[in-house]
């Protein structure tokens, strides 16, 4: 069920009301049951898949922890990782690789017919697979004790607020919360409510309205690619995907917080970044840190010289792109960002410390020039992310060389300003205060007034289609 639908609000209300009446172990069992119900609501056919991978990972972790034999431990790790990667690879990438293989062989003059299975993607598989991989790796490297309770482990994987589209939770962060008793805290409950309202605003008001312009630009309804169409499409999609995903993350975090769980922050005002490195410290933080810790560092990170550092950066970003979807456009998107990061590192290296962290300067003109520059670099990459094919993305970008003006373009720009400026102002506020939602540290009357304004905005200005969260397709 989508987070921005009445049925989810009803579901959440009933679950939270029942939850706080139960004791710890009963809470976990109840949450596990409703999480499977939540998952099955999407598509009950894939319940078996998540159950199988959960049970296998649970057992492998316990056996790894109990074994001193390096070969046994490695085999168990390979079994768990292999099963998870096979499930993900089969359901998500089989058709993609099959088609790509046939196309590649076709260019060499070898005609082959590779059967396509047209598989449906199990909801959330990219997210829960990464969580399972993190768990088994952490247990293998003895960074984490395995769970002895299948219920607790299964709940760590399937806890419904993060099940379908993250944030990807680290086992060392979430599993202990599952295992220990959660105590009622009215302030945390209040924060959860505010996060949910803020998330609804980001998704329903900002993202769903920006989606209209993005769709119009990329589908050709606004006309052939030209400078205005390219700018409208890129800007609209940039704010759409940000509002959509940060909104989802806020609702997920807020929902979890109503039950005493604390999820990691997933976005920190990414469009205020002054460098690409900073951007990746602020955008989809749960994924970027996962890639850093389990892929980039495993490949060697920056420990083996500059050439290998660039290789590792590019590899990580390319695979990160591929994680987003079975299409070459995502690979190109990841490659572009990998290239950006490598180039930025090289430039920084020339001028000093390549690992230097930029200091903040919220209102300095120089900082704003940097932010605008970085935002546009990110938008170029978004064109590939949004387009259906590389050819269409290049056609869209080719619009930079063509000027055409229609009266609708001014209307579209005004529309976009109406729906992006509020989120931009919200981000400025959060950046300057360090809060997680506006007016977090203000008096209750201000909090209530903020809540009322969010409620009014969502009720009156929500985009009128049911738009699934973009990251649900990953």
């Amino acid at each position: 069920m989508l987070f921005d639908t009445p049925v989810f609000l009803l579901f959440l209300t009933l679950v939270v009301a029942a939850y706080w009446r139960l004791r710890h172990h009963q809470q976990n069992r109840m949450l596990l049951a409703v999480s499977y119900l939540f998952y099955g609501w999407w598509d009950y056919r894939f319940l078996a898949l998540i159950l199988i991978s959960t049970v296998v990972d649970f057992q492998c972790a316990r056996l790894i922890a109990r074994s001193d034999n390096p070969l046994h431990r490695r085999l168990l790790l390979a079994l768990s990782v292999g099963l998870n990667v096979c499930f993900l690879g089969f359901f998500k990438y089989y058709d993609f690789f099959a088609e790509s293989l046939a196309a590649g062989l076709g260019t060499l003059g070898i005609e082959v017919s590779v059967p396509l299975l047209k598989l449906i993607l199990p909801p959330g598989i990219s997210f829960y697979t990464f969580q399972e991989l993190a768990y088994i790796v952490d247990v293998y490297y003895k960074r984490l004790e395995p769970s002895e309770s299948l219920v607790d482990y299964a709940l760590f994987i399937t806890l419904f607020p993060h099940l379908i589209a993250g944030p990807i939770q680290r086992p060392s962060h979430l599993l202990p919360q599952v295992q220990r008793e959660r105590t009622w805290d009215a302030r945390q409950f209040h924060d959860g409510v505010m996060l949910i309202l803020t998330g609804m605003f980001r998704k329903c008001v900002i993202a769903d309205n920006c989606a209209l312009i993005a769709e119009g630009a990329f589908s050709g309804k606004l006309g052939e690619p030209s400078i205005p169409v390219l700018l409208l499409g890129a800007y609209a999609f940039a704010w759409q995907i940000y509002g959509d995903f940060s909104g989802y993350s806020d609702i997920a975090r807020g929902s979890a917080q109503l039950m005493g769980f604390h999820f990691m922050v997933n976005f920190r005002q990414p469009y205020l970044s002054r460098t690409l490195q900073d951007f990746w410290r602020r955008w989809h933080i749960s994924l970027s840190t996962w890639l850093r810790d389990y892929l980039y560092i495993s490949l060697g990170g920056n420990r083996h010289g500059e050439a290998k550092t660039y290789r590792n950066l590019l590899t990580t970003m390319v695979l990160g792109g591929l994680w987003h979807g079975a299409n070459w456009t995502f690979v190109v998107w990841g490659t572009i960002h990998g290239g950006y990061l490598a180039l930025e590192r090289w430039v920084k290296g020339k001028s000093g410390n390549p690992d230097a962290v930029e200091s903040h300067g919220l209102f300095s003109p120089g900082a704003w020039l940097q932010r605008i520059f970085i935002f546009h670099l990110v938008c170029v990459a978004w064109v590939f992310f949004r387009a259906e094919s590389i050819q269409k993305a290049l056609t869209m970008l080719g619009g930079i060389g063509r000027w055409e003006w229609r009266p609708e373009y001014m209307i579209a720009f005004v529309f976009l300003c109406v729906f992006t400026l509020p989120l931009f102002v919200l981000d400025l506020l959060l950046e300057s205060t360090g809060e997680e939602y506006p007016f977090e540290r203000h008096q209750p009357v201000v909090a209530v007034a903020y809540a009322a304004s969010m409620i009014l905005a969502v009720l009156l200005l929500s985009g009128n289609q049911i738009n699934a969260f973009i990251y649900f397709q990953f």
Partner: protein
Amino acid sequence: MPSSTSSSSSSRPTAGIHGVNWLRVSLTAIVLLAAIYGLMEFATRRFLVRSSKILSRIEADRRAVMSPRQGKPLVVLAGNSLLLFGVDMDLLRREVGSEYDIRRYAVEQTAFVDWKYGYRRLLKEGVKPDVFLLMLATRPLVGDEFRRDQFAYYQLSTEDYLPFVSDLRLHPTDATGQLLSHYSNFYANRSDVRKFILAKLVPNMANLTTRLAPVGGQLDPARVLSVSKERLRWFEQETRKDGVKFALILPPTRVDGYTEPVLEASKTAGAATLFPIAGASFPPGEFLDAHHLTEKGAKRFTESLAPALKTELDQWRAGRQKAGLRIH
């Protein structure tokens, strides 16, 4: 700046506001949500129809259809904007003759699904037409689109909710949304409320939304044939059960209307279909766009429709008289 993997609890300083009952604040926010929603519900029920030209026109049509009969056969002519723009009702009534009481019920953006259940709701609300005419182009006749939330409120009856969900194989999320729309005027009309506000915030917004409107793709003639046969048969049988005569009216369009398969399907389904004049007979200046007629085009269409409709109605009337059945 806090660590990037920090949770909300470990990195945030405490709020520094003491002695506050945060549970009460949260409950206030939740109660506020309910109160604001209630206010919106009251406001839309009270004021929306009055402030919306489209909704007030639809309401006027609905009241006209539901008003007491006039001692002559009641002919309900239902459809979407093609009916609204394409038929000159005064001219039609004059040309068909005063022995029939023809009442229009036009609801923009409606299609087969809307009228399948809309017809049933009319009967449940006490409207008993003698003749039910449905004016739909091919695409809305065979497609699965419908007026979404407004359909659920205005055209779906409570008893038909489950059959509708099953008929369209709605996902449970969509089905529960439709249920809320069925009972909540605000939820059903929220997109119109949004359009109203956007029109104030963004000048000439309608010009942009027209350009962004979805465009249908090519239709498969074989599918048009099979689906229209099934749907026309449904209407024919459903109306016959109620003692109502049914006929489909196909409007003219500037693009390929796929009318041949529909005409063939209507013969097989045993449903009367009137296609008085093709779009090609109209000069381009008599179309506003690919489908909607200008005033002049509507006059031309109505002048072609009226005699065909009169013949159809007279035949129906004669048949009933011959069978000794009541005319109305």
